[in-house]
Every structure is written in C-alpha cells, then in structure tokens.
C-alpha cells in the first residue's frame, strides 16, 4: 500500500513536470508563430513609448532571447525561489511561488490565483454535493424501476440536462429566478464566505443548481447504467439469498459496486471544474479561476493564461491522484493486489 502511494505520488510529480513543460512550450511557441518577436513581447512590459534600444535591452534582461529550455528553467526556478523582473526603470520582485508576472496589470500572477481559488472551490464543492445526491439517487431509482414511467421521465429529463449548454440554462435561470421572481441573487454578487455565509450561499445558489443540473443528468445516466449491471451480478443474488432487506441489497451491495467507476469520472470532473468552471463563472460573473482565464485570454495576458493553465493542470493531476488512492481504499483487489 505504501509503495503504491509512493509510486502514484512520484508519477503525479513527473506528470506535472511534463504538463508544465508542454504548456510552457505552447505559450512560448504560439506567439512566435503569429509573428511576435522578443522585442514585441518586451514592449508589453515597458510600454510603446520606449525606444528600440530600451526594448532590446529589456528583452535581453528578461531573457527573451534565451533558448526555450533556459526560459522554462527560469520559470520553474521562479516557482520555487521567486523571480525578479528587470523592467529597466524598476525591478519588480515576484516572490515564490512565482507563476509569472503580468505585464498588463503589473502584478504577480500567483496572488491573483490564490484570491480566486476559494470562489471556484465554493462553486465546485456545492455543485458536486448537489449533483452527487441527485444524480446517484435518480440513477438508482431509474435502474430499479427500469422501464417504468419514472425511469422514462428521468431519462428524458436527463437527456435534456446533458444536452442543454450551461450558458443557456444559466441565462434562463438568471432571467426567471433572479430577475423575474427575485428568488436568487443576480449575477456578479459574489461575497466571500468569511464575510457573510448567507450572502455567499445566496449568490452561489443558482450557479450551483445550474452546474449541478448538467452533471446530475450525466451522473444519473452513469449510475443507472452501473446499477443495471451490478444488480444482475451473482453477489446480488447471494445478498438476497441471505435475506437482506431489499434496501440493503441495493445500497450496500449494488450501489457500493456501481460507485467505483463513477468515482473515477467524478475525480476527473471535479478536477476539471477546480481549474475553472469557465462557462458558469462567466454567465454568473463569479470571480473564479475560469473567469480569470477568460479575462486573461481576452486581454492577451500570456503570463496569466500560463499561470491559470498550470493551476488547472495541477488540480486535474491532484484529483486523479486522489482518485487513484481512493480506488485502493474502495477496491481491496487494487490495494491487496
């Protein structure tokens, strides 16, 4: 078990390095492909007013002429030890962990990310709780009453839920529940939990529901399929032969087994969401990582985009790691070989 954990941890670290190198290369190459030169990149830091000589000097000081692997090495070093950005007039210090320095807002990226993580985390956790509760129970009931009216209604509804995009359901939700009925908060009213838990929940209620709607639909279908399979297994027959009440047969034996593959998908979904629920945050103007990414892209703020991308990758890798470890807890055949 210990070696299993160590192996997984090691793999996760290696994976993060590979992802960071790949991401960095993309952000290094793409601007050059569309015609940017070290000088144009440097111009962003010092402003258009600077003379070509200054620009050239700054580009040199920022290391824009260096080969890619050197620049990558410096970027990684910044994460661990911090970095200094010499802009000629001033030298900006970006303390560790330095995930880049925005030349547009003239701020390090990391504090921004730290500010936004709680928003995205709040959104993701709340929605996940909702979609797990609804998805699993609707899916289970559907499987048990396969072919019934309830099953067909649930599956039709969930097909709609899967296929309707967030920006559609989100807009409709805002229109009806916030503006017409006034039951939920309008967009852009996010408040920190520490400031006011009730305002926090009020602002997030509709985003949670809208996000959960889509995932519940998907999880209901997954759960239904999984339950249909496990409820036909021999060990279910054994559980019945023991005289277990049908509820225990379903939950302790059926659902328990059906949950394992769902756990994997949940880990991935949740990890992806932590990297930024882009559409939801955009529709509801929630200042999370997703909205941060969209804003950074709109402003062509490459260091920010790179930072938030790394953050997202980090969450996905960590979520996968946790799923792998949970798998071992859940499935003794993994744990004990």
């Amino acid at each position, binding site marked *: 078990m210990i070696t299993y954990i160590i192996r997984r941890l090691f793999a996760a670290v290696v994976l993060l390095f590979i992802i960071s190198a790949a991401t960095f290369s993309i952000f290094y190459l793409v601007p050059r492909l569309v015609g940017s030169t070290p000088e144009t990149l440097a111009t962003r830091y010092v402003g258009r007013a600077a003379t070509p000589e200054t620009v050239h000097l700054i580009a040199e000081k920022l290391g824009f002429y260096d080969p890619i692997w050197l620049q990558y090495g410096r970027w990684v070093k910044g994460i661990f030890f911090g970095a200094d950005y010499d802009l000629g007039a001033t030298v900006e210090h970006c303390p560790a962990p330095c995930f880049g320095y925005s030349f547009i807002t003239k701020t390090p990226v990391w504090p921004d990310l730290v500010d936004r993580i709680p928003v995205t985390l709040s959104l993701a956790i709340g929605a996940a709780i909702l979609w797990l509760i609804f998805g699993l129970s609707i899916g289970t009931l559907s499987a048990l009453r396969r072919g019934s009216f309830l099953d067909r209604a649930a599956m039709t509804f969930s097909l709609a839920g899967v296929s309707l995009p967030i920006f559609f359901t989100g807009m409709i939700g805002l229109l009806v529940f916030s503006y017409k009925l006034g039951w939920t908060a309008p967009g852009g009213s996010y408040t920190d939990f520490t400031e006011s838990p009730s305002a926090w929940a009020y602002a997030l209620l509709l985003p949670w529901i809208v996000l959960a709607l889509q995932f519940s639909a998907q999880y209901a279908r997954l759960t239904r399929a999984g339950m249909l399979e496990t409820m036909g*297994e*021999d*060990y279910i*027959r*054994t*559980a*019945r*032969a*023991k*005289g*277990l*009440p*049908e509820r225990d047969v379903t939950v302790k*034996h059926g659902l*328990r*087994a059906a949950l*394992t593959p769902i756990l994997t998908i949940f880990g991935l979904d949740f990890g992806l969401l932590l990297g930024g629920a882009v559409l939801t945050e955009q529709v509801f103007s929630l200042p999370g990582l997703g909205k941060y990414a969209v804003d950074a892209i709109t402003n062509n703020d490459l260091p920010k985009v790179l930072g938030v991308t790394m953050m997202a990758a980090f969450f996905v890798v960590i979520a996968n790691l946790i799923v792998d470890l949970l798998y071992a807890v*859940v*499935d*003794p*055949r993994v744990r*004990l070989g």
Partner: protein
Amino acid sequence: MPDGQAFLEVKDLKIHFPTDDGLVRSADGLSFKLERGRTLGIVGESGSGKSVTSLGIMGIYNKRNSQISGEIWLDGDEIVSAGQETVRKLRGNKLAMIFQDPLSAMHPYYTVGHQIIEAYQVHHNVSKKVARKHAIDMLGRVGIPQPDRRVDDYPHQFSGGMRQRAMIAMALVNDPQLLIADEPTTALDVTVQAQIMDLMHDLQAEFNSALIVITHDLGVVAELADDVLVMYGGKCIEYGSASTIFERPEHPYTWGLLGSMPRMDRPTQDRLVPIPGSPPSLINLPQGCAFSPRCAYEPQTGGLGTTVPPELVRAGGSNHLVRCHLPTEERQRIWAEEVKPKLEAQ
C-alpha cells in the same frame, strides 16, 4: 402441520417468464417432497430450469417479470402465497442456498468475514463482536485453517475451494433446516470437488438439514442423494429414490445421462457418450414429448411421442414416477436388455 406432510413439499410449482418472444416455462409443474436429514438431487442439462426452481423455492424472483404458481410448503408454512417480508425472514435463516461460482457469488469489496457476519446479523439481533465470533467459528467448522485470521481476508485472497467453503459457512451460519446447493462443485477442480461434497455430507448429518443438490453431474448425485429428480425442459421426467434411478431407470433421457456420466472407476477415454441433439428451447417446446426429437425410442411410441405430451405416471419401482409414452414393461425390457449391458461394457 397437517398429517403426513413432509418437511418440504412442493406441489405443481410453475415459474414462467413472459418475454417478447413468448412465455418461457422454466419450471412447469414440479412436485416433490423432502424430509429433514434427507437429500434430493435435481439433475438435468443446462437450461432445464434447475436454478430457476431453486431460486423460486428461496423466494428470489422478480414479480414484475415472472409468474409463479403452485405451492411450496416448508415445515407447515406455505411460501408462494406468503408476503415478501415473511419469505425474506425465512431466507438465509430457515432455508439457505449455496451457489455455483463462489468468486462471483461473493461481493468483491467486502471481507469474507463481513459477508458472513452480515448474514448472521440479518437474522440475529446481536453485536458485531458476537457475530464475528460466530463467523470465525463457522469458518473453522468448514475447514478453513486459521479462521481468526482468514476472516478478514477478501474473497479474492481465498482459493477456489476455500471460497466455496466460505460460501457454505455463510449459508450455514444460521443453522438452516433446508439447504439448497446449486452446482456447488462445478467451478472447482476434481480433488476439491470431492472434499466439498464430503464437507456438505458431514455438515448435513451434523445439522440434520434437508438438502437439495442441483447438478448436471450424476456423480455428485450418486455420492449424496437419497432421491433423484430428473428435469428436462422445465418438467420432471423421472423421479424416484437414488437406487431406483441408478439401478432401474426407465426414461430414455435418464439412460442418456447415465451414459454420459463420468465414472471414476473407468479409464477416462471412453467414458462420455453425450446425448445427441441439444436441450429444447423453453418457448417452443417440441409437440408431444419434449424429449422426442432426441429420443432413439420415439418410433416405438406409434406416433404418440410427437403428438401427445406424456403424463408423469407411476413406473416400475415404488414411489417411482416417469414421463414417457413407452409401456412400463417395454421400458424395463430396453433397460435390462439393451442399455444396461452397454453401460456396463463401457
């Protein structure tokens, strides 16, 4: 209990499944009796309805996709008409079941001990500690070495034979009075098969339970059974004491089964003579006798075999029933003069 009623009495049991292709008559009018301390062997090829029948007795069927009728009397109580909750409380308690493939029949995510404890606690209001002690005790009795340690193992950590022992421990944990074993040894290799059969035999004597052994292997039946019921296409086609069935069988299908029976005392090369043809589809049973398309003696029925379904009637032996159009004397003659010498010469 009404006078003369056996411990287990099944009367005209029918279990049918309506499907899109038609009505599947998996069990079609079965009747038999069994006393405590006795063993009934139910034999038949794959698909003859053995498992459906045993699950029916256990009350494990889905009312939404099956139709069940007839009577099952267990110790004076009728189960077919009883409420689901009543039957559930009997299940695993007064009547228990062992399944064919012990690996898939155990939950992969729970320890063997957990699964036995669960079986005990459903029917006994005791603490986990007490139930665990009981589970360890049971594992020891079915011959698991170091049961106090193995109790925390998962099914995949057990060998095939040990798994089946654990299944038996799980089934016997509540001292059931009726035990149904559905092909308990099919998934095991030969030496382990013998051990498991010995174990079941000993435990049955110890618990004085009624035992139903379901198998397509007459060798198992010869070893364990007092009575034998031969099933074909959901129906009983021959029923009698084990000595009757092995020494004076009257149904051509039973002859075929005996001919295909593995014999320990014979060289292996020439022991298997399969019955020609394949088991019937339960939806479109052949006209007349279900076995007629595969029966070598069908021409001797004068056309009855393919037109009229035979009734289950008294045969030569005492308490011996057979479902065949051939006259009793003719069957006895064929057995004595044609089939028996051939089997012995094999």
